[in-house]
């Protein structure tokens, strides 16, 4: 996976996050009309299989964008050059995100 391909993925995920983030923002604004509670959150996410699927994709996209960004920061500010830690970080972020998407399903 060349640096250029990672750059391409970063740009693509940023575009996707703009769209999905807008959807998420609308959901938040609707949700905040009433006090937050576990029951209210789960009622929304259980209402349709679309939501867990949407949040699974959102989580993977966000985790990828974050991991790639952290990778560049670590290389430029800390001098970290290896690939293994970046892949590990991405895996952890994706795993934690998908776990959350599964739990709210």
């Amino acid at each position, binding site marked *: 996976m060349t640096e250029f391909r990672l750059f391409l993925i970063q*740009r693509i995920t*940023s*575009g996707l996050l*703009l769209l999905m*983030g807008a959807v998420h923002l609308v959901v938040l604004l609707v949700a905040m009309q009433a006090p*937050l*509670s*576990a*029951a209210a*959150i*789960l009622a929304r996410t259980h209402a349709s299989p679309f939501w867990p699927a949407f949040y699974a994709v959102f*989580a993977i996209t*966000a*985790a990828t964008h*974050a*991991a790639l*960004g*952290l990778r560049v*920061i670590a290389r*430029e*500010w*800390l001098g970290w050059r290896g690939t293994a830690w970046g892949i590990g970080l991405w895996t*952890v*972020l994706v795993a*934690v*995100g998908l*776990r*959350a998407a599964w*739990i*709210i399903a």
Partner: protein
Amino acid sequence: MRAPSLGHRAHFAWWGALLRRLSGLALAVFLPLHFLALGLAADAAALDTFLDWTRAPLVRASEIALAAALVVHLVSGVQLLVQELWPW
């Protein structure tokens, strides 16, 4: 990291790039915490306890700071995408 040495000559785009990076860093640190918090939904009581905790003023302030970081990162990112991809 070598400290940026442009002193008082650091300019608008330079601050923009730095803000984009720092806000992204803050969001990237927050993201797994957000995922873990939502994972509490497995136990509704646990999530409700957590949500009560988030009403504390310090947490509220952090949420506002995070929302600000998101806005900064989003605006800065869109500006970058337009600058890079728009056929000027």
